[in-house]
C-alpha cells in the first residue's frame, strides 16, 4: 500500500536541515510539493540560496529518509520559481530557531531582540554570516554576538 502524502510530509518533518539541525526541512519551507505519479513518489524541493552547499546534502537526506521508510520509486524535482522566501518558514520553525539562539527573520530587516537576553539594544556586524542564510549581529547589553536568519 502506498503511504499517504500526509505520511510522507510527517516523515520529512523528521529530516533535519543539515546546516541548522534544530529545524526540519518542512520547518524551512523548502518542500514545495509531494505527490504520487502512478507508483513513483515525486518530491519537489526549492533551493534556499542558489549557491547553498547544503542543497545537494538535503536531496541526499530526503532520499535516504524516504528509502528508509520503504519508498522504492522516488523522483526529486528542483523548482526555482517562485523563489524561496523566509516567509515560508513555519511558526514552529521560527520558535525553534529563537530557542537555539538564532534570531528569526523579520520583514523589518533585523532581529526583534537578542535571542539570549531579549535586549533590543543591537548592532549589525555584517550582512553575511556562517551560512548564506544568516547575518551576524551583536547584543550591546549582554555583548554576545549572535546569528540572525536574514529575510529574503
Amino acid at each position: 500500500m502506498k503511504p499517504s502524502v500526509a505520511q510522507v510530509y510527517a516523515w520529512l518533518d523528521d529530516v533535519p536541515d543539515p546546516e541548522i539541525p534544530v529545524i526540519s526541512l518542512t520547518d524551512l519551507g523548502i518542500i514545495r510539493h509531494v505527490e504520487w505519479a502512478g507508483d513513483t513518489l515525486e518530491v519537489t524541493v526549492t533551493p534556499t540560496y542558489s549557491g547553498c552547499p547544503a542543497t545537494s546534502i538535503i536531496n541526499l537526506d530526503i532520499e535516504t529518509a524516504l528509502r528508509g521508510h520503504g519508498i522504492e520509486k522516488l523522483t526529486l524535482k528542483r523548482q526555482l520559481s517562485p523563489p524561496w522566501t523566509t516567509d515560508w518558514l513555519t511558526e514552529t520553525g521560527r520558535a525553534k530557531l529563537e530557542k537555539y539562539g538564532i534570531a528569526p527573520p523579520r520583514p523589518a530587516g533585523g532581529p526583534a531582540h537578542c535571542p539570549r537576553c531579549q535586549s533590543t539594544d543591537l548592532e549589525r556586524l555584517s550582512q553575511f554570516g556562517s551560512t548564506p542564510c544568516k547575518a551576524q549581529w551583536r547584543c550591546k547589553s549582554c555583548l554576545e554576538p549572535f546569528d540572525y536568519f536574514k529575510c529574503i
Partner: protein
Amino acid sequence: MSTLYDFALRMGDNTLILGHRVSEWCGHAPVLEEDIALANTALDLIGQTQLWLGLAAEEEGTGKTADDIAFLRDAWDFRNALLCELPNGDFGRTLMRQYLFDQWHLLMLQELQKSSEKRVSDIADKAIKEVSYHVERSRDTVVGLGDGTAESHKRMQDALDYLYPYVGELFTPDAVDDAATKEGIAPDLASLREAYDAAVAATMAEATLALPESRFGHKGGRNGKMHTEHLGHILTQMQWLQRAYPGATW
C-alpha cells in the same frame, strides 16, 4: 547557436569569473567578517552560474552540463565582461569592482524579471534576492573606505580610476544583445545606463570620490575577441583539475 544560449553564456560567465575572483580572498581578508562576506558573495555568484550555464547547456541540447561549460572551454570561448576578470588588487579595489558590477547586476536582473523567457525570469527572481544583499554591502564599503582615512580614500580613488574604463562594456550592445532585446529575452543594455549613472554618482558623492570624466570603455570580453591577459591565468587555476585529469569526477 540560439540567442538564448549566447545570452545565458554571457550572464553565466560574468558570475563564474567574478565569483572565482572573489573566492581568491577566502582566508586572506583583513578581518573575519569580511572574509565570510566575500566567501558568501562568491558562493552566491557560483550558485547563479550553475543556473545560467545550466540554462545554456540545456539550450545547447547536446547533453553537456554546467560543469562541462565552466571547465572545458578555453579563454577565447569565455563571454564575461572584462571588469569581472580584472585582478583583485587590494581589498578596496576588490570592493570597488564588486560595487561597479553589483549596481549593474541589480538593474539588469530587475529588467530580466520581465523577460519573455520564463527560464530567464525565474533565474532573475532568484538571483535578485542575493544581489540586493551584495550591492548593499559593496556600496556601504565603498562609502566607508572612500570617506575614510586619507590612505583609504586614496586607494579607493585609484581603484575607481583603474576600474571605471571597464564599466562601459556592460552598456554597449552588439548583435547578440540586439537579438536578445528583439526577442524580449533581455533589455536594451544602453537603456540601463541612466539609472546606473545616477546610482553610481550618488554613491561616489557620498564616498567623496571623483568619477573619471572620460567615458572611454575597454571592450572585447563579452564577444570573446580580446580578453585581458588575466583571464588565462584564472583558468589555469580554475580548470587545473580537469586539465590535469580529464573527466575526473568527485
